[in-house]
C-alpha cells in the first residue's frame, strides 16, 4: 500500500464536525466533474490510491477511469463496502428481509438461482457473497488490490461475535477478486485479537488514530502498544480528529508512531491536499524511519 491514501468523505457530505460544512460539500461536489478534478489534484500531488465507499456515484467515477486508461495507468481504488446509509435507511422503510430483497441482485426469490436458493436455504455466507459481488460490479476493470469492509459492519460482526463471517469475508475477497481483505474499525485492539484468534495473521486494518484519542475505542495507549508490536498492517484514518488539533501537530503525531503503513486523508481544496501531503512527506523524512 502507498504511504498516502486519498479518501472520499468530502465528496459525499460526510463531515464529522459540522453539518453546515457537510451541506456545503454536497453543493461543491454536485457534479462528478468536481470529484474527478479533485482526484486529479491528489494524483498530481503523488497520491495514486483512492479509498472510497461503494456509493452509487462512484460508478460514474469508475466509468471515467475506465475511459481514460492512459491517464489512470497507476491509479488504484480501495473499495469500502457497503455504503451503509443506503441499507440503514432501507431497513427503516422496508425491514431487514425487505432490504435484502431490494439489494441482493436478481430476483431474490426465484429467477436468479443462486440468490433464491441462498435465501431459502438461509445460506447467509452465500448471501454475503452476492452482496459483495453486487457492490463490486462498478469496479470492473479497475485495479482494486485491497477491498475493505466498512466499520459499521466490521464492528457489528465483532460485537455479535460473528467471527466466522469476518473470516468468510476475508477469504472470499481473496479468492474471488484476488485482492487483500481490509477491515475498517473503531475498535482496533478488539478486532485484531479476534482476527488473530481466528487464524488471520497480519491483517490490513484501517482505524481512527489521532493525537486527540478520538474514536480510539479501547484507549489510545492500547493502540500505541499494538503498533509497537507490529501485528497488523495499519492505515491511520481520522488523523486530524475532526480538527481537534492543528494539522501540523496531528500529522507529526501519526508520523512518529511506528508501523503505520498508510495514512488516509480527504480534503476538498488544492491547498489543503497539498498541505497535508507535504506535511506527511516532511515528517516522514524528519522523524520516522519507516520499517
Amino acid at each position, binding site marked *: 500500500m502507498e504511504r498516502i491514501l486519498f479518501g472520499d468523505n468530502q465528496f459525499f457530505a460526510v*463531515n464529522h464536525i459540522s453539518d453546515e460544512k457537510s451541506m456545503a460539500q454536497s453543493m461543491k461536489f454536485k457534479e462528478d466533474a468536481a470529484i474527478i478534478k479533485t482526484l486529479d489534484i491528489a494524483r498530481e500531488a503523488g497520491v495514486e490510491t483512492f479509498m472510497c465507499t461503494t456509493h452509487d456515484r462512484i460508478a460514474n467515477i469508475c466509468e471515467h477511469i475506465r475511459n481514460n486508461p492512459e491517464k489512470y495507468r497507476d491509479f488504484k481504488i480501495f473499495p469500502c463496502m457497503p455504503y451503509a446509509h443506503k441499507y440503514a435507511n432501507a431497513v427503516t*422503510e422496508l425491514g431487514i428481509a425487505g432490504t435484502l430483497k431490494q439489494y441482493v441482485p436478481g430476483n431474490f426469490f426465484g429467477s436468479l438461482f443462486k440468490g433464491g436458493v441462498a435465501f431459502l436455504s438461509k445460506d447467509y455466507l452465500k448471501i454475503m457473497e452476492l452482496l459483495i459481488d453486487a457492490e463490486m460490479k462498478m469496479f470492473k476493470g479497475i485495479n482494486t488490490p485491497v477491498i475493505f469492509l466498512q466499520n459499521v459492519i466490521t464492528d457489528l460482526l465483532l460485537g455479535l461475535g460473528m467471527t466466522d463471517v469476518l473470516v468468510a469475508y476475508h477469504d472470499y475477497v481473496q479468492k474471488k477478486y484476488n485482492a487483500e481483505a481490509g477491515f475498517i474499525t473503531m475498535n482496533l485492539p478488539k478486532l485484531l485479537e479476534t482476527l488473530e484468534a481466528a487464524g488471520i495473521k497480519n491483517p490490513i486494518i484501517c482505524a481512527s488514530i489521532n493525537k486527540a484519542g478520538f474514536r480510539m475505542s479501547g484507549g489510545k495507549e492500547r493502540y500505541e502498544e499494538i503498533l509497537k508490536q507490529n501485528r497488523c498492517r495499519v492505515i491511520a484514518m481520522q488523523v486530524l480528529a*475532526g480538527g481537534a488539533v492543528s494539522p501540523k501537530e496531528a500529522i507529526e503525531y501519526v508520523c512518529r508512531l511506528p508501523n503505520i503503513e498508510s495514512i488516509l486523508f480527504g480534503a476538498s481544496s488544492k491547498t489543503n491536499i497539498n498541505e497535508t501531503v507535504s506535511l506527511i512527506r516532511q515528517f516522514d523524512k524528519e522523524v520516522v524511519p519507516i520499517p
Partner: protein
Amino acid sequence: MVRVGIIGIGKMGISHLAILGANPDVKVVGVCDTAKMMLDAIEKYSPFPCYSDYKKMLEEAKPEAVVVSVPTKYHASMVQELLEKGIHVFTEKPFCLSPEQGAPLVELARKKGLVNQVGYHNKFVGTFNEVKKIVDGGYLGEIYHFLGQAYGPVVVKAKGDTWRSNPEEGGGCLMDYASHVIDLINYILSPITAVKASMLKSVFSREVDDAVFALLELQNKVTGVLSVNWSDETFRKMTTSVTISGKKGKIVSDANELKVWFKEGPFPEGYSKGWNVRHVTDLTPEVDYYLRGEEYSAQMDHFIKTVAGKASNTINTFESAWLTDRAISLIKKEQA
C-alpha cells in the same frame, strides 16, 4: 456479570445486541425475535442462546435485565410483564403508544425499585450535554425562545409497508423521529406542557405523518417551535438540532457542533464574549466499544452500570420518557 436478555433484533435491537456482546460485564443469556431470518443468523454465527418465544426465554434464561426493542405497540404489555417478574428494563423509544399506557408502568417500576431506562440516546451526546450545562448555569440569561429540529431521509418515496407506516403501531414521523427532539427539549429546557398549534403532514406516506410542525409551551412558560421532517433528502442522515435564544446569549447545537454566542459575562469556563464553537470531538467521553456513535454504547453502559449498582437511575427514566409521550399526545390532539 449482568445477565441480560434482548427481545427484538431489528435495526435497533441488533445494534444493542452487538454493544451488549462487546461489554465484558455482560452475559447475553438470551436473544429473542419472531423473525426467523435474523434469529437464524444469530443462532448460526453468534454465541448467544436464541428463542422465538420471549416468555420461554424469561423462564429458561432467567435474565436479570432485559432490553426491549420491538415495535412500540408491544412495549406496554412486555414492560409490564418484565417488571412484574422483577426484571430491570431498557426499552426502545418511544416509551408507549399513549401516556395512559405508560403511567402505570412508571409507578410499577418505582414501586418495585427496578432500573428503568428508555433509548433516547441524544442525552449521551457530548454537545447536547454541554448545551444543558450552559442552560442550567443560567449563562443565556432569560430564555425566551427555542427551536427544535430534526431532518433526514427516511421516507423519500411513496412505498414501503412496515410497522413504521402504521399509525396504530407507533409508526410515523411524530412518534418515531420527532420524539427524539421532544425528549431533548424536555431534558435541556423544561417539559412540554401545552401545544398551541400543530400540523402533521404526510409527504409520501399514505397512513402516517412524515413531517411535524408545532408551537409548544413548556412548564417554565418558555415557548418555541418544533420542526421535524423525515422525508428531507437534503440530509444524508438524521440531523437533530436545537436553537435556544436568551437575553444574554444564543445557542445553536447539533450532535456534532455547538455554537454559542454570548452578549456579556459571566461566561462558562473556557467561553468568552461573542461566538464560541465546540466540537463533539472535544466533548465526547471515550467508550470501550464503538458501533454507530459513542452515545449508543454510552447509554447501554449506563444501563448495565445502573443494574450493577454502580450508577444511579437518573437518565432517561420511564418517567422522563412518559413526559415525552405526553407531549406527543398533546401534539396529536392539537393538530390543525
